[in-house]
């Protein structure tokens, strides 16, 4: 019985209804951001002088390339955040150094495919070594990540100092592209396109295809690695595939847009999305949306301040994360505060009218009145701690009581319970006393401990549960303190009180 009560306390709305709300929230967020972006673009691309044509190609291409890279990073980032490996991107950005040095030593070229392949191999090696180390040594992933990337980078420097001291080989310069370069288009089979998109669009498509193909396995791997391990080899293979996929996408994006953007987009959108939804599909959708908005808004801000676009994209992503921390409907600080406030107001207002009801009962009359400003004193009498409700909550509670018509002012300007208010109050008192009786019969609690528990429960017992309690108690008429339990039926009640 008690477990049943506890489980009912979670006000779980039907899953599908909430899912639809989430989609609408996402759509309106995207629409709002798009409007902001359009306004911002309008402003930053305004021609310097009249007669000069507005140059939209560079901004739009930059945003498109940024979005493509942000979207694929955000999708993979969701899995990394769930697997507590979100810093893999940053680690790879350092760890590729020996790959680049070796590729240069072998090919003698500072540009092109050899360097890219060297980096790619080291990206995969980083992920594999991290996994191997954490499973062989049973250390947490962040520790093994830290050990692997620092060692690999150190190895790279040793190689440089030993063999190519006079080459200008550093990761920033040789491997990493810059997102702004996407603004320069070139001819490609008769089309003017931006070259990075040729690498990033396939990456995005492969990422989406991979996630769709292994949806179920990836889900198990991310949420329950122990179960995944118990389920056998294929899941492990999928996990290694995921890590390889992340390495490839990361290195490809480094080459196209640079590491700042990639590292940020692997972590921030996914972490924000994790606050916004508990369902994986929804989380991925949010992460993509946040990534794309970061890319677009980041470009606008970067252009407005004439500074690094990649840096601004990371900052915008951080801003959105902050918004999610505060305003997420599920777990945001503001929404938590609001929910607590509403609950406190409801409980306070219910406590007040329950107190009025008890006073009426005690005085055997319907005429007990209080001044609304005296809510505080009445609350004390009705049993809530004086300090539990702030003046603001009490003020809202008194407003709610008046607004719902639970009390009305008499000729002397004092509030009395109306019939509607009395019905509500009676139900509360009934719940309170039923619960006390239930606790008294089923648990070996001292009598003076009953009241506090019931004081909390009375606000959460719905009629169904009350009926169950009533049946269980088989029509006991008075509570352990000897007070009458008001009947559920109102018609009986008003007569019985007024006699």
């Amino acid at each position, binding site marked *: 019985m008690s477990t049943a009560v506890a489980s009912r306390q979670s006000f779980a709305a039907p899953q599908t209804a909430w899912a639809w709300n989430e989609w609408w929230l996402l759509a309106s967020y995207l629409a709002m951001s798009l409007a902001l972006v359009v306004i911002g673009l309008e402003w930053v691309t305004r021609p310097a002088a009249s007669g000069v044509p507005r140059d939209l190609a560079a901004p739009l291409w930059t945003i498109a390339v940024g979005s493509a890279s942000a979207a694929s990073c955000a999708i993979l980032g969701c899995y990394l*955040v769930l697997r507590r490996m979100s*810093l893999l991107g*940053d680690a790879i950005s350092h760890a590729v150094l020996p790959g680049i040095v070796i590729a240069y030593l072998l090919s003698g070229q500072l540009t092109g495919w050899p360097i890219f392949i060297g980096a790619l191999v080291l990206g995969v090696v980083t992920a594999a070594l991290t996994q191997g180390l954490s499973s062989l*040594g049973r250390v947490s992933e962040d520790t093994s990540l830290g050990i692997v990337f620092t*060692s690999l980078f150190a190895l790279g420097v040793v190689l440089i100092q030993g063999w190519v001291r006079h080459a200008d080989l550093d990761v920033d310069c040789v491997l990493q592209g810059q997102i702004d370069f996407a603004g320069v288009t070139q001819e490609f089979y008769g089309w003017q396109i931006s070259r990075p998109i040729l690498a990033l669009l396939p990456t995005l498509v492969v990422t989406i295809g991979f996630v769709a193909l292994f949806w179920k396995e990836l889900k198990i791997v991310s949420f329950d690695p122990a179960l995944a391990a118990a389920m056998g080899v294929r899941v492990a293979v999928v996990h290694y595939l995921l890590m390889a996929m992340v390495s490839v996408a990361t290195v490809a994006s480094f080459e196209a847009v640079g590491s700042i953007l990639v590292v940020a987009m692997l*972590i*921030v959108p996914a972490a924000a999305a994790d606050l916004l939804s508990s369902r994986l599909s929804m989380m991925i959708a949010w992460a993509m949306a946040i990534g794309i908005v970061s890319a677009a808004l980041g470009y606008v801000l970067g252009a407005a301040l004439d*500074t690094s676009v990649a*840096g601004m994209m990371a900052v915008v992503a951080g801003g959105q994360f902050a918004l999610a921390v505060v305003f997420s409907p599920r777990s945001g600080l503001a929404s938590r505060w609001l929910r607590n406030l509403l609950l406190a107001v409801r409980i306070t207002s219910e406590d007040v009218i329950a107190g009025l009801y008890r006073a009426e009962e005690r005085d055997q009359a319907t005429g007990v009145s209080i001044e609304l400003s005296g809510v505080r004193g009445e609350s004390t009498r009705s049993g809530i701690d004086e300090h539990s409700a702030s003046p603001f909550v009490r003020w809202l509670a008194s407003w709610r009581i008046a607004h719902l018509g639970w009390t009305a002012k008499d000729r002397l300007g004092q509030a009395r319970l109306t019939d509607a208010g009395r019905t509500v109050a009676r139900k509360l008192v009934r719940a309170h006393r039923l619960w006390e009786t239930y606790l008294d019969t089923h648990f070996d609690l001292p009598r003076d401990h009953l009241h506090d528990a019931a004081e909390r429960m009375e606000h959460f017992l719905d009629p169904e549960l009350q009926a169950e309690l009533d049946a269980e108690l088989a029509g006991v008429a008075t509570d352990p303190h000897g007070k009458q339990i008001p009947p559920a039926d109102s018609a009986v009640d008003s007569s019985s009180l007024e006699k």
Partner: protein
Amino acid sequence: MIESALHALRENYNFVVILCGVSLLGAGAGIVGAFAVLRKRALTGDALSHAALPGVCLAFLVLGERNLPAMLLGALASGILGVAIISALVRWTRVRDDAAIGIILSVFFGLGIALMGIIQRMGSVGNKAGLSSFILGKTTGITGADVWIILASAAICLAAIVVLYKEFLAVSFDADFTQSLGWPVYAIDLLLMSLVAAAVVIGLPTVGVIMISALLIMPGAAARFWTDRLSTLLVLAGGLGFVTGVVGTTLSYTFDKLPAGPVIVLTGAALFLLSMLLGHRRGAIARILAHRRFRRSWQERQLLRTLYELIESSGFRQRSVPQDDLLSLRAWSPAEAQKLVQEAAVAGLVLPLPGGRVALTDQGWQQALEATRGHRLWQTFLAEYPEQAGSVVNLASVSVDDHLPPALSDELQAKLVAAGRWPASEVAP
């Protein structure tokens, strides 16, 4: 004698200074970093070295020139802001440590890069070349003054750890429980992470990003393989950090073309690998050996139990059974069965007889009884109380008696005796 030693010291002044600086830094960072590793925040060092950039840029913007102390103060300020946000996110939202660290790393670094971009395009604000790497030192650049600074900061960190040892211990192992005791978890956590931030800010201008990240992680992670006690762990981490510095610097001094910082990092990695393999608490070899020992004794018990069951099914007429019968009850290959029997024979538990039969020795008989009893008690327990299996566990436990309350074990035994399935020693043939 002393004269010649002093002369040698002067001849190798840089080596001595680097050795002192790096080993002290290794010890200090190792101790402080051990906490970060325990709290699953091993990458805080890496994150903070990126997060320092906006502070550096702001200090430059305010002063209009490259001034190392001011820029380090800026780095410290943005580092502490960074750890404050990390701790707050972990404490009050459901964002986890690694994601919080990653967010600070990428967003602060992004902000720093954006500020750099703005500075790059400003007119005359002094010399801004190499701003982003300005506060990053190289190990070989450690000077005498640096050594004193490192020594002083290490002493302060150590003092803080000694004074607040109990608080740090509680927060590192069970933050939630500590919270429920009413301790100011956030403040303690923030203080602990500020020590890490201080280590990073001392480390950046002396040894650079990668090496300070490594020195914070490797000693603590390596020490974890040797002990479960925090006090021992801290001493060990400090010691390993110190050794890392000494060995790495000496290597770089002995051989040509070995860059100091990277060699120290690789030395730390080697120490970590050795600890991971050899550590007697959690090391891989110790674990694999224990697993193998356990597996062997488990198989041996299985063999004895199977022999007992075969003898039981023959009505206890004789103490030997044909070896091939073993295969009918277990999924062993003939070769596996042969190997098991041989190993058990070496241990003096069974006696291979001519004609392909296997007999139990007296010792083997006693152990077979025990193994079968344990197995049947466990079986009955699972059948009677399946819902409690998870709370007692260890399916393959050596002795059920250790895991079941005596009353329960007696009750189960009575059931088995009633069913005639309790292996009793007196029926021995």
